[in-house]
């Protein structure tokens, strides 16, 4: 039998790894046919919504629900007193703290959930909320973590013993009632010694402002308790549906097999949808109480003001170097503002996430990090907004410290990076703060980036611009933003990564159908990443069936294997690996079937694109499609019928994607308006599965980086009022504000990942924020600027110019 098509055509037909396969999800998304939580409509469904606190810190004197219960359509109003008998007025957080589900005697942040109104429709619920009367006694408000640590005002009386002593928290001793933890990494004394004896030390304090992931779809759920069969179904915007199932079981007492959690289409997550929120708990309770399905959907203000914020890190750094610029030590201290409850979403052993990746891409022999978590009267959260756990903070810190050191040394910042990069031959590299970087080739990426943008030409142009500015010929300065980042993603090895005791492995289960198509189910859940497209490509290459013949299904805990979900760029590093490994199990069995059909020994056949061929006789083969059919219709001695596999993958290490970014910006010193003239992004995410999707991810991540660097902020006034609660003031860039992005790549596969892939969804955000920020700061460097805090919105840029005396 002769092949009708070439081997190359057979490869193309699979649409496997490396192919810019069009996204299979887009047909429904671009036609308005997606199925999001708010699209779910069930018979008799009720709506729940919250009475929220107008105060940031207050004692609750009374809650009167009588008038609300008189509002037509209102069925019930839940308060903490109603939840207390069930033990549900508080809930555990992912960070080992507990959080009020409904205000239990006091409120700790503006917008906090005080009562939950259940009604026949949204309008009645909103009317009911207006009719609930709450009497508050205002308490002193603390919005600054440094003041909090000095204050006599105790925010969390529940965390102070009756004798006034302060019991240990989930992460060890606490030194003040408003203190949550101290967490350290590295070696304190040797680092301090290096810094004390160094010839050059640069010091800087920087505030990474509070911001918020802003998925287009807000958080929400539909809870439906079937009292006949005792089963609870919970649809929701969950980035980790299995973990939610376990949490719901643990706090409600409903056995896990009686809970089905479904994440339908999700309109973006970016970390906002990792945690458990009071809305979920109240909806479940309301459904149990009423026997009817109950829907809860946040509006935009609810989302911005109350569900998981990101960042709010006050960072102080010291970096030591030789006069030639070789870095000898790094110290970092963080005061972390966690808000009223510690609801950070980090692996249990890492209360400051992977902040200890803050030595960045550099060979720094000695380092020390300490982080103090602090309570304030702000919303809880502290999630990883489009990054792995606290990695944006770490990369921002080191990429600013490098710039500050370059200023101190009067040295070019690109060259300073180059002489300190970890060298290719040093990988696997163990950093001073403990991580083992898997692979990298930083010098190649850096040189490629600088050459592509003509870095020297840019610096010459910038120097001329400064001359022109001083001569009064222009009012625009030019900034060249550099950043070189190393991410740490793919959490993670079960030996050190868990959430609520759940190891952070992930999974894939594959069923091959008799006619040679397949379904694969995973423990992750796409929120726009394109998993249905890319995971099918991984499988296509692994099992030789076309990606178009493979359905990818996620998000239903009744059908998908257990997994820890999608965030921290972990889907490809962990579930992608599980997919490849499960595919290899399929292939191993297929090899035995092929050998039987071809009447040769197992070892005499080999895999070739979409078939097994007899070694040395390529005209003798069985396609995977033929093998699939044989698996179901032939009695093969010693082999079970069927062709299925499941793999649970516990990664041996994290993956460490990296990249080199350059931004060229013109800044109008009179108005503070920045214009991004050019943005070049080189990403190395290891093996590339779908270049088109990678490019899309880079565009999206850079846009969110632009937002955060140039204006996106959750700001509070001194009374704890949120000043940026709508999209008028919370900066969400549109196509208008976004520049053209140039993308580029190098490929340094991960040595420990089955297909060498590292993950890319978050890299552009992690690398982008310091790049945009560095561009702004670089423009003012010739006039004496060392550091200014983000966000660089118009008035803050103007202020920098003003303080440097540039307004004459």
């Amino acid at each position, binding site marked *: 039998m002769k092949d009708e098509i070439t081997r190359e055509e057979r490869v193309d037909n699979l649409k496997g790894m490396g192919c810019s396969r069009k996204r299979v999800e887009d047909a429904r998304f671009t036609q308005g046919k997606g199925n999001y939580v708010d699209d779910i409509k069930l018979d008799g469904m009720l709506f729940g919504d919250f009475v929220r606190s107008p105060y940031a810190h207050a004692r609750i004197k009374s809650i009167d629900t009588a008038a609300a219960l008189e509002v037509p359509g209102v069925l019930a109003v839940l308060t903490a007193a109603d939840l207390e008998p069930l033990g549900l007025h508080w809930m555990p957080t992912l960070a080992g703290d507990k959080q009020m589900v409904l205000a239990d005697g006091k409120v700790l942040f503006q917008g906090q959930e005080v009562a939950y109104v259940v009604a026949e429709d*949204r*309008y009645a*619920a*909103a*009317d009911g909320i*207006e009719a609930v009367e709450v009497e508050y006694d205002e308490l002193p408000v603390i919005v600054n973590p440094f003041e909090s640590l000095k204050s006599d005002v105790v925010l969390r009386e529940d965390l102070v013993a009756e004798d006034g002593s302060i019991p240990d928290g989930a992460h060890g001793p606490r030194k003040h009632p408003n203190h949550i933890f101290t967490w350290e990494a590295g070696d304190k004394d040797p680092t301090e010694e290096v810094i004390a004896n160094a010839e050059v030390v640069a010091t800087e304090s920087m505030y990474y402002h509070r911001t918020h992931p802003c998925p287009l779809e807000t958080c929400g759920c539909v809870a439906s308790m079937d009292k006949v069969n005792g089963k609870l179904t919970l649809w929701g915007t969950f980035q980790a549906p299995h973990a939610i199932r376990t949490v719901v079981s643990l706090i409600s007492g409903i056995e896990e097999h009686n809970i089905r959690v479904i994440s339908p289409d999700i309109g973006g997550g970016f970390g906002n949808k990792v945690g458990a929120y009071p809305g979920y708990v109240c909806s479940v309770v309301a459904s149990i109480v009423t026997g009817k399905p109950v829907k809860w959907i946040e*509006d*935009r*203000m609810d989302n911005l003001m109350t569900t998981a914020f990101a960042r709010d890190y006050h960072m102080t750094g010291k970096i030591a170097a030789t006069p030639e610029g070789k870095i000898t030590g790094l110290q970092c201290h963080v005061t972390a503002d966690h808000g009223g409850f510690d609801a950070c979403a980090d692996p249990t052993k890492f209360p400051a996430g992977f902040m200890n990746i803050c030595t960045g891409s550099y060979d720094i022999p000695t380092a020390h990090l300490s982080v103090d978590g602090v309570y304030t009267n702000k919303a809880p959260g502290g999630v990883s907004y489009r990054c792995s756990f606290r990695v944006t903070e770490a990369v921002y810190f080191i990429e600013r410290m490098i710039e500050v050191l370059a200023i101190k040394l009067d040295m070019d910042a690109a060259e300073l990076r180059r002489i300190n990069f970890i060298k290719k031959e040093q990988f696997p590299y163990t950093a001073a703060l403990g991580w083992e970087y898997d692979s990298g080739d930083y010098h190649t990426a850096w040189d490629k980036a600088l050459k592509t943008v003509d870095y020297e030409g840019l610096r010459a142009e910038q120097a001329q611009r400064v001359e022109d500015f001083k001569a009064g010929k222009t009012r625009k300065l030019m900034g060249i933003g550099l950043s070189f980042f190393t991410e740490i993603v793919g959490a993670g090895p079960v030996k050190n990564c868990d959430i609520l005791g759940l190891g952070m492995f992930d999974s894939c289960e594959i069923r091959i159908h008799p006619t040679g198509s397949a379904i694969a189910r995973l423990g992750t859940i796409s929120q726009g990443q394109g998993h249905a497209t890319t995971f099918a490509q991984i499988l296509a290459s692994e099992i030789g069936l076309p990606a178009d013949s493979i359905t990818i299904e996620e998000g239903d805990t009744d059908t998908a294997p257990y997994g820890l979900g999608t965030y921290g760029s972990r889907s490809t590093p962990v579930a992608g690996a599980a997919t490849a490994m499960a595919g290899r199990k399929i292939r191993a069995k297929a090899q035995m079937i092929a050998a039987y059909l071809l009447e040769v020994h197992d070892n005499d056949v080999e895999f070739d694109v979409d078939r097994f061929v007899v070694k040395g006789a390529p005209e003798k083969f069985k396609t995977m499609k033929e093998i699939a059919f044989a698996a179901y219709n032939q009695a093969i001695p010693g082999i079970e019928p069927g062709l299925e596999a499941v793999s649970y993958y516990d990664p041996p290490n994290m993956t460490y994607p990296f990249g080199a970014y350059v931004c060229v910006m013109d800044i109008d010193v*009179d*108005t*503070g*308006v920045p214009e991004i003239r050019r943005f070049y992004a080189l990403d190395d995410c290891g093996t590339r599965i779908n270049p088109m999707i990678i490019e899309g991810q880079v565009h999206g991540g850079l846009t969110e980086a632009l937002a955060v660097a140039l*204006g996106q902020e959750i*700001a509070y006034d001194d009374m704890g009022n949120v*000043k*940026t609660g709508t999209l*008028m*003031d919370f*900066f969400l*860039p*549109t196509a*208008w*504000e976004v520049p053209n992005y140039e993308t580029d790549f190098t490929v340094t596969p991960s040595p420990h990942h089955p297909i060498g892939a590292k993950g890319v969804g978050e890299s552009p955000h992690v690398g982008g924020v310091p790049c945009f920020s560095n561009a702004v700061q670089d423009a003012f460097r010739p006039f004496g600027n060392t550091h200014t805090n983000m966000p660089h*919105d*118009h*008035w803050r840029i*103007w*202020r920098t110019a*003003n303080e440097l005396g540039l*307004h004459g």
Partner: protein
Amino acid sequence: MIPAAFEYYRPKDIAGVLSILEEHGDDARVMAGGHSLIPMMKLRMADVPHLIDLQDVGGMSDITVGGDSIRIGAMVTQADIIDHEGLTTAAPILREAALQIADPQVRYMGTVGGNVANGDPGNDMPGLMQCLDAVFTVIGTDGERDIPARDFYEAAYMTAREDEEVLTAVTIPLPKGGWAYEKQKRKIGDYATAAAAVQIVKDGGTCAAASIAMTNLSDTPVYSEAASNALVGTAVDDAALGAAVAAMLGDIDPTEDNRGPVAFKNHVAGVILRRAIARAWSRA
């Protein structure tokens, strides 16, 4: 973001509108494009038990360019202004300003009448109409009356229009000379950090007439007669620009908000006005 219950009316003529207004007084509001009123209702900051939609009322959607003046019906949208060639020829500043309002989706719904009548100091059209010395026509049960745009605004959301009156049209004397609408904003869809509307008539090398109004720098739009006068009779040189800016700064009264503190706003107002005057002068 769920409004309280309200009655919805969609009368076919202005008489129908006025009778509902007369019946319900303060409890009734008319709505044109709804881009200001509906969000306020959804935030429950505006309580409107009786909402009167003007969409079906005829006769308010025309743009008429005459020999001396332009008449723009209250229901004309910003998109209509952008698309109208005759209007763009006669008063190009209208199109330049309309293109800086919100985004295309909003401009398809947002109307000139709603923009000027709402009294929101952030809106762009009020300052623009003051610059152009427009006259607003309002109608009530006692008949029509005309109110100059420069006398219309009393405070934020407070205007010379009575609650029972409906703004039906804007009439603008045909503008002369060079024009510019300059606006600084943080992003698409934002109100101005500072905006300036400028019309200048040049005679030889000298400014014969000028009109300057500023947006979102006070609780009303600010027509600055002093700034305008500072340019007249000059060659619009640097000294004249400085004098106009200084005069304008005497007339505005910005407040701190998320766009920035007062010092920043004053500075930017000056920069924006300089640029607007320079561009208008170059076109005069």
